[in-house]
């Protein structure tokens, strides 16, 4: 392992240089060629470099790049996913796709790497906003209005969550001695209004990973996003959401059983809601959005457990991170791979095999963490098992529905996807699943025989259940948007617009009326009448006499 922290900076500088290259017309052609491989240095660094810290002298307020275990794992995940995005982009759009897209892509990539390497809070905020806005730039390129609307909602949520996070950091900043994560965590520990700050954290970070109240943007964006952008989306969501938790929230150092209980029940609620949504959801990527919600629910239950028994954190830390990255990779694999079987019947068996493996890996990740809680917190164990079961059930159900749909369409001769680029997706699909397998290896070792057996039992039962319910089709497809909240949002916006519009109109009208009534000419006109009378000789001289008399009388008085 090379101990050279300065190499870390290359990870960030490389994509930026390429972005500049793309913009400058001279080097545009070369830069576009290299663009897809921009994630390579991050991958190599993730593999070869050992932990370290790089102090950036001028940058922000004494900020530095931190490269530790969680950083490494998330960096690897983002690197792989961005590599996949690059390849998919090149494969799918073929021709020299819009220069604007590449610039946004490279910027988003830099942002993601920055997030995993950020050593201090402000750097992390910069990275999140950079990625958020450039991803928005990428997603908003689509022509049809529904995607536009969905992505706009996403942006609004992102911006609001950023502002909330910024306020939280300011609240912490008051107590923190400096701006980096460690100091922030101490600040978190010693604050009095813990619940206010935890609420802000939950809102700020939850918005990105689809917390219950803020999940409405997730499904539409997952469904409408362009094929090549899906891995990037997952990488942004996972790193923006989970790195924030891991770095900012002092897991293991703070003991708040009250909040823990509340969070636990929140997680249960989320799981129930996810089940409801999953069943009603027919679109294959919509389902994956629900899966993401389930993952978040599991994460919250784990956090709740740690809040109740902080000492669990030490042992749990490493596997939790690897489990999360594993789930991320598998989810992104499913995002690309699901539904591939339609156009390449020959690859059907390989596809079925990888799908099975993916589902297995996805569900085994939470189960592998069960061993930590088995003796301590039964509720968390139950939620983990239920979560895994739910995931399996929903995945299988969508798989069977896809199979049924495939038969129906093959009978009616549905449209054929373009064949050429689907091969790349195949390879990437299986590649990502294999990488997921590799990250899962350390966790699998932890599995006891009993858990493996019960896992397979669960797998079988879920398979049967999914097979039975594959014919139940929800009557009307769930709208693209979870309608109700969107309407509220729209009406609220228009109402505010009108209210402040009146403010504008009234102030103009007020100004005009003042000008008309008290205009100087109006006031002065009746002064000129007095002036004319003053100009008459007799009046003036009488006044003069009066003044003379006044003066002499004055003299007499105070003689």
């Amino acid at each position, binding site marked *: 392992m090379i101990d050279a922290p300065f190499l870390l900076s290359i990870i960030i500088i490389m994509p930026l240089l390429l972005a500049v290259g793309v913009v400058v017309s001279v080097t545009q052609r070369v830069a576009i060629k290299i663009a897809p491989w921009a994630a390579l240095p991050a991958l190599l660094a993730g593999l070869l470099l050992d932990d370290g810290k790089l102090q950036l002298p001028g940058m922000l307020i004494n900020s530095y790049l931190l490269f530790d275990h969680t950083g490494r794992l998330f960096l690897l995940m983002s690197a792989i996913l961005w590599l996949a995005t690059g390849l998919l982009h090149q494969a799918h759009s073929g021709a020299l796709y819009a220069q604007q897209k590449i610039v946004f892509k490279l910027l988003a990539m830099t942002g993601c790497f920055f997030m995993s390497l950020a050593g201090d809070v402000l750097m992390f905020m910069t990275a999140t906003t950079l990625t958020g806005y450039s991803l928005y730039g990428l997603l908003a390129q689509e022509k049809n209005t529904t995607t536009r609307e969905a992505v706009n909602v996403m942006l609004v949520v992102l911006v609001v969550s950023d502002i909330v996070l910024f306020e939280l950091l300011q609240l912490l900043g008051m107590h923190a001695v400096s701006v980096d994560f460690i100091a922030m965590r101490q600040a978190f520990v010693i604050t009095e209004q813990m619940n206010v700050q935890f609420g802000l954290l939950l809102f700020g970070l939850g918005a990105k990973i689809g917390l219950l109240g803020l999940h409405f943007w997730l499904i539409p964006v997952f469904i409408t996003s362009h094929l090549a952008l899906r891995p990037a989306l997952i990488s942004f969501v996972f790193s923006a959401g989970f790195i924030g938790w891991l770095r900012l929230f002092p897991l293991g150092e703070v003991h708040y059983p009250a909040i823990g209980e509340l969070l636990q029940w929140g997680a249960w609620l989320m799981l129930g809601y996810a089940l409801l949504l999953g069943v009603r959801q027919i679109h294959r990527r919509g389902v994956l959005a629900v899966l993401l919600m389930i993952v978040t629910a599991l994460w919250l239950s784990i956090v709740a457990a740690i809040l109740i028994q902080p000492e669990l954190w030490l042992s749990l830390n490493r596997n939790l991170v690897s489990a999360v990255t594993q789930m991320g990779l598998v989810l992104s694999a499913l995002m690309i791979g699901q539904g591939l079987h339609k156009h390449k019947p020959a690859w059907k068996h390989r596809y079925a095999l990888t799908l099975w493996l993916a589902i297995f890996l996805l569900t085994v990740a939470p189960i592998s963490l069960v061993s930590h809680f088995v003796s301590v917190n039964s509720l968390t164990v139950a939620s983990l098992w239920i979560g895994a079961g739910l995931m399996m059930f929903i995945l299988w159900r969508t798989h069977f529905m896809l199979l049924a749909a495939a038969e129906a369409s093959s009978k009616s001769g549905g449209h054929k996807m373009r064949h050429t680029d689907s091969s790349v997706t195949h390879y990437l699909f299986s590649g990502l699943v294999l990488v997921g397998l590799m990250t899962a290896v350390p966790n699998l070792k932890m599995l006891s025989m009993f858990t493996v057996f019960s896992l397979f039992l669960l797998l079988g039962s879920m398979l049967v259940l999914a097979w039975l319910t594959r014919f139940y089709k929800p009557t009307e497809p769930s709208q693209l948007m979870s309608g109700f909240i969107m309407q509220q949002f729209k009406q609220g916006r228009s109402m505010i617009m009108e209210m402040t519009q009146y403010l504008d109109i009234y102030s103009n009208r007020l100004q005009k009326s003042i000008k008309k009534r008290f205009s100087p000419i109006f006031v002065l006109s009746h002064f000129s009448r007095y002036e*004319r009378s003053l*100009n*008459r*000789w*007799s009046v003036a*001289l*009488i006044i003069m*006499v009066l003044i003379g008399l006044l003066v002499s009388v004055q003299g007499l008085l105070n003689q």
Partner: protein
Amino acid sequence: MNIPMIYALLGITLFSVGLYGLIVREHLLRKILALNIMGSGIFLVLVALGKRSVGDLPDPVPHAMVITGIVVAVSATALALTLMLKLVEVSGSAVLHDAPKERS
């Protein structure tokens, strides 16, 4: 109430009559006359009060002042008359209008 005091009182009455004329009468020639009468009134006051000196020689300084005053009065009157004539030539009336017409 000796003689000089009477004449002094006459002087101030003449001054007031002149002032009254100046205020009330509108024709410029009359105003010039009024000014002259006021002037004589003031000269009267000057010389009359000068007479109160003991001995036979009345105070010569007011006399000198009055002679200067008379010359100044005549030059002012001459100028006023010429100005009035020019004004009449131009504006046609020897009365200082309060310029309602020229109020632009």
